[in-house]
């Protein structure tokens, strides 16, 4: 059994009285201890996806549409009772947000807030609980945790605040940590530290990590598997190294082509024209086709499905169901920590693009 199995997730949120389908049919499987990077620009639906997993969407102004399924260790989370959801939230699944200052309560000390998280999920008395708080703060690299536990959020630097948020997330010993742009609000040198920390924790506790970022570089530092989201749909997924080496989807190629490097100046930047469309105005057919340099007549009419890429060049079977993409059920969950690198590699590449559909030849 996989740790997390998302099938045909469709989520909407309300904006200016209209319902916009931010996530539209996403399939995603995560194994224990696996680090998956979810890459997408703003408006791709990546944050709505994260909120859907935590069952936080209904609290605001959105909802998960019927027919969606999110299973955590086999347990269906869509339509789950709030009581049970609360046990899972911060317990088996924890989340770290982009902006630690707004996620921390300004009137309580950092230690008290971590303590609250500890007590919510574990039966501990005050003394034990406090010792656990100090242990967690030390774990996330906060120096002098005994003193810092007494500090209020505004007394800590941005990096220390994010570390405190991570300590809170760890309080329930999560099997899955969702980090939504955890470093975007931080300075470059601090970003690198937080990424190293996440990588270390994931590895040490054999914790699954869903890292959401607009930055391919951030994801490539930490995650074995990469999922590229565009306009509410997965357009490409596979081992990070493979995708970086040979991106298949024109959007992924454009995204990687927009990156800049330190090693040399790019002679010409070839950006993707246009911008991500609004969630209530997705184009017909392939959602990327208006921006795609390789689009042809079919792309504007019919939507391509996510197909697994075989070993042969572009010879993916046209299987609409991405079950062909995931690993054989449960077989990877037993893999020990030393084989961790193999998990990512064993996963097939899959792409949602007419250029890589197996039976394309016959249709033309």
């Amino acid at each position, binding site marked *: 059994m996989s740790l997390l199995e998302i099938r045909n997730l469709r989520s909407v949120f309300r904006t200016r009285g209209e319902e916009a389908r931010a996530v539209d049919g996403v399939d995603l499987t995560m194994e224990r201890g696996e680090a998956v990077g979810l890459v997408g620009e703003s408006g791709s639906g990546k944050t709505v996806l994260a909120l859907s997993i935590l069952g936080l969407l209904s609290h605001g102004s959105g909802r998960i549409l019927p027919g969606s399924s999110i299973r955590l260790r086999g347990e269906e989370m869509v339509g789950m009772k709030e009581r049970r959801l609360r046990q899972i939230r911060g317990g088996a699944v924890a989340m770290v947000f982009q902006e630690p200052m707004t996620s921390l309560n300004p009137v309580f000390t950092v230690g008290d807030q971590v303590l609250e998280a500890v007590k919510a999920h574990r039966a501990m008395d005050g003394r034990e609980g406090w010792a656990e708080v100090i242990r967690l703060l030390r774990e996330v690299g906060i120096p002098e945790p005994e003193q810092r536990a007494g500090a209020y959020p505004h007394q800590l630097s941005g990096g220390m605040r994010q570390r405190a948020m991570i300590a809170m997330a760890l309080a329930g010993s999560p099997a899955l940590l969702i980090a939504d742009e955890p470093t975007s609000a931080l300075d470059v040198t601090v970003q690198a530290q937080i990424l190293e920390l996440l990588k270390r924790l994931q590895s040490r506790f054999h914790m699954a990590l869903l890292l959401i970022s607009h930055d391919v570089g951030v994801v*490539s530092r930490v995650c074995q598997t990469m999922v590229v989201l565009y306009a509410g749909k997965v357009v490409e997924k596979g081992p990070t190294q493979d995708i970086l080496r040979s991106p298949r989807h024109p959007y992924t190629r454009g995204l990687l082509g927009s990156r800049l490097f330190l090693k040399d100046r790019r002679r010409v930047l070839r*950006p993707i024209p246009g911008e991500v469309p609004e969630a209530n105005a997705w184009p017909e057919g392939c959602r990327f086709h208006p921006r795609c340099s390789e689009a042809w007549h079919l792309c504007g009419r019919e939507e391509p499905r996510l197909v697994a890429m075989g070993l042969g060049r572009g010879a993916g079977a046209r299987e609409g169901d991405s079950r062909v993409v995931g690993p054989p059920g449960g077989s990877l969950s037993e893999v020990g920590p030393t084989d961790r690198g193999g998990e990512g590699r064993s996963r097939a590449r899959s792409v949602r693009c007419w250029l890589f559909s197996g039976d394309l030849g016959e249709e033309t």
Partner: protein
Amino acid sequence: MRSPDKRMVTDPPKVLAGPGETRGGFGEILLSVRDLSHRFHPGGPLERRRAATTQVLRGVSLDLFKGECLAVVGESGSGKTTLARAVLRLIRPTGGEVLFRGRNVLEMSPRELMAFRRKAQIVFQDPFGSLNPRLRAGNMLEEVLRVHGGSSSPASRRERVVELLRLVGLSERHGDRYPHELSGGQRQRLGIARALSVGPELLVLDEPVSALDLSVRAQVLNLLQDLQQRLSLTMLLVAHDLSVVRQVADRVVLVYAGTVVESAPVEALFADPVHPYTRGLMAAADTGGVVAGPGTIPADPAGVASEPAGAWALLPGEPPSTAHLREGCVFRLRCPHPRKDRECELASPELTDYGSVRRVACWKKRESRTGT
């Protein structure tokens, strides 16, 4: 600071940018910043009474040559944004000079200042926060033209508005939209059009692409480079992202805690960063080359001492709050290799020549150079 860097004033330009070291080969200095410093009282009236001040800039000097793009790089609290604003006198720095074609901007009369603002403009980081939400894009541009344009007719102004929109890759119909009806990239294009509307020579860009998505960021960078060439603009780019700087800048100045720690032509800097801060910044920013780099988890399950991306170690700690710095090198608390003698603690190193084209403020580098 031991002493302000007076020597630079009389130095020939080659000290800062040797011929052939930069793209154009620049001669004329358009803007000079001399020993600029700025303190402010943080917080509200209560803290003000305590007379605690934060020194944001500590004697920054730099020259901007006509036609070049000079990047000022630093993390939050480095003073880079304060520097950008002081250059245009959007704030009044507490010390130093800003010379635009030899005239001190900080002492200009209101009339002179108005003329200066037609020569020097700024593009802000957040286009949404810097555009009037109640004005349509076209009307906003027209207003700028009316204020700065003298006696031009309404018809000619409208013509000019369309011209400006096209210049930045927008179309005429975008002129009828309110800022909230534009996307982030379009808003930033509009911000650039606003800055260009008065026909400036100098464009100050304060983190112009950091709020934009990756695919849009590349579009805007292309636009800026294109505009720089077509309009022969001089640009002062304030940024924290080294890869952006690498792409567009000719020369780079690195600031840390309000102090310039290194300045060099872009090629030299990226080929061989000298100051330990520059190296740390590069290690942090380097997310690998074309192929993933250090993508997956290291074989060591603990992974504690995982390999940093580049050849240099990741820096410990965080950018300092400038209020707490007293004596010594501003970087010493995070420096991976301070000198064994206590020089780094006792005095602040001056920015001195290092090789023919760069300048570095580091006691260690000075020691190693005299040693060899």
